[in-house]
């Protein structure tokens, strides 16, 4: 059985190789980024085009952009998911149409979202390069993953609970707010966190919607540079910007790791609740 062992060995090698690549990237990031990382880096504004100073204004812009995207996308996503999970029997054809178009939406390249956001939000709606334009563009972008995750969470609520609610004569609205949503809450949290993660990582859709001004935004119509855009700009356009680019990237990846941990926690609670 030589070929068998060879094959297994090959698969082990490939898989461990993939792990090694990831470790390489993460260690490299930590190694080069940690030098410039300090409390001061997080709390001061960038100076000298980002070569000096910190990233406080970019963190604020990022938070605003991501919050806008989440606040806009969450209700639409939640309601759409409820329709897909609950009302699918009555509107099978409509549900299929919605799913099909969401599949398309989730495959649209982020740079095309950028083009769209620029043409629609910045110019047609007159919002200009602003936090609002960027946030709304991202809201469109994270909608598919939000809906898909929440729908799955709603679907996995045990049928007995829904039947019991109907047997009690509860209205659909009451069933939704008192039975379905509490039961699916951890799943909704997973979707939310995934959406936030996706929004945090986004660069291409933001350059031409929220802009690249580094100062601290004062309101939603101010332009603001996201952290990811800052990393790109430092690495590509600013000679001697690599150190700060790495530190910013480290901050970004750390935020994503924390979010990832939250997803796992929520997912675990979610499955535990289903088991009991």
């Amino acid at each position, binding site marked *: 059985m030589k070929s068998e062992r060879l094959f297994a060995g090959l698969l082990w090698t490939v898989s461990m190789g*993939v*792990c090694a690549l990831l470790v390489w990237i993460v260690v490299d990031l930590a190694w080069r980024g940690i030098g410039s990382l300090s409390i001061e880096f997080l709390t001061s504004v960038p100076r000298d085009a980002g070569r000096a100073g910190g990233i406080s204004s970019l963190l604020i812009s990022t938070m605003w952009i991501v919050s806008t995207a989440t606040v806009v996308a969450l209700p639409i996503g939640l309601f759409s998911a409820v329709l897909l999970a609950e009302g699918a029997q009555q509107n099978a054809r409509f549900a299929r149409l919605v799913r099909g*178009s969401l599949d398309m939406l989730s495959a649209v390249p982020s740079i*095309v979202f950028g*083009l769209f956001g620029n043409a629609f939000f910045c110019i*047609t709606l007159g919002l200009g390069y602003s936090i609002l334009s960027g946030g709304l563009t991202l809201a469109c972008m994270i909608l598919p993953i939000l809906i898909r995750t929440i729908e799955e969470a709603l679907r996995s609520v045990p049928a007995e609970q829904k039947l019991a609610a109907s047997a009690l004569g509860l209205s659909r609205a009451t069933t939704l707010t008192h039975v379905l949503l509490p039961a699916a809450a951890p799943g909704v949290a997973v979707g939310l966190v995934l959406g936030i993660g996706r929004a945090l990582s986004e660069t*291409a859709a933001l350059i031409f919607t929220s802009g690249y001004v580094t100062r601290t935004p004062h309101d939603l119509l101010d332009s603001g540079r996201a952290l990811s855009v800052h990393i790109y700009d430092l690495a590509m356009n600013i000679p001697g910007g690599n150190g700060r680019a790495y530190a910013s990237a480290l901050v970004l990846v750390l935020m*994503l790791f924390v979010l*990832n941990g939250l997803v796992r926690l929520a997912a675990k609670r979610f499955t535990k609740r289903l088991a009991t």
Partner: protein
Amino acid sequence: MSPYARPKRDRALSVVLLSSAALAASLIVLILVFVFGEARGALRAEGFTAFLTDAGWHPTDGEFGLLPMAAATLATTLGALVMAAPLGIGAGLFNALIAPRPVARFHRALVEVLAGIPSVVFGLWGLVVLVPLIGGGERSGQGLLAASVVLALMILPTIALSTEAALERVPRELLQGAAALGLGPVACARRVALPAARRGVIAGLVLATGRAIGETMAVLMVAGNVVAWPAGLREPLRTLTGNIALEMGYATQEHRSVLFVAGLVLMLAVALLVVLASLFGGAPTATSHGGGASSA
């Protein structure tokens, strides 16, 4: 309000649900309408063929040949697939068939972390670590190879997770039957598991291709961005997406409109791939495990 006030509240709820879903579903149409609307100017002025026949890309002189950049997009995508497909399918097979459970769980978590790394971070790593490695000190390593490697890393998780998910859906009895007949893991994987999971694996590959075509930042940071036909592994080139990102900031009038034509082309290509993937039954989405969601 009484929980038994059924008709009124329920009707209101229905309206809210329906209109939300309709809004979500119409976004793709809105995007298409706006991208097409902006592209129309150039399409009308230049005709459909000018983008194919114009000799070069000199937007200020009214020359809008997109073909070299389209070729660059295809070349980087193909390069990425050649590298990522065997690795991704291998990693998926490993997780689903031969890895001990804790190892499989750990490995899947790592692959999901890889999927969650933002493209700009891949770009940074590519620029600072990979490019000098490929360049070998005497020249810049920016070009086809660097772009393909970075892209491969980015689509690998998609392939690995969808392969694994497709294999998980192969009925256990089938695999146990094969094992009972004395088939080892190789024969089992090649003759039973992979053929049974073929459609899901292919759908994953198709979706990964779509991601590679649409990826912008990471490629932009390592490709060198000279408008040129793909000529060699270390020759710089510029993809369609990179071109949009580079020039959108200052493009006006017809130039701007041509960038939207490029966007339209990208959108149609990706849409075609989504339809293709759904013909294979759609990729078994692995995103629901958490973490596996990122693209930029």
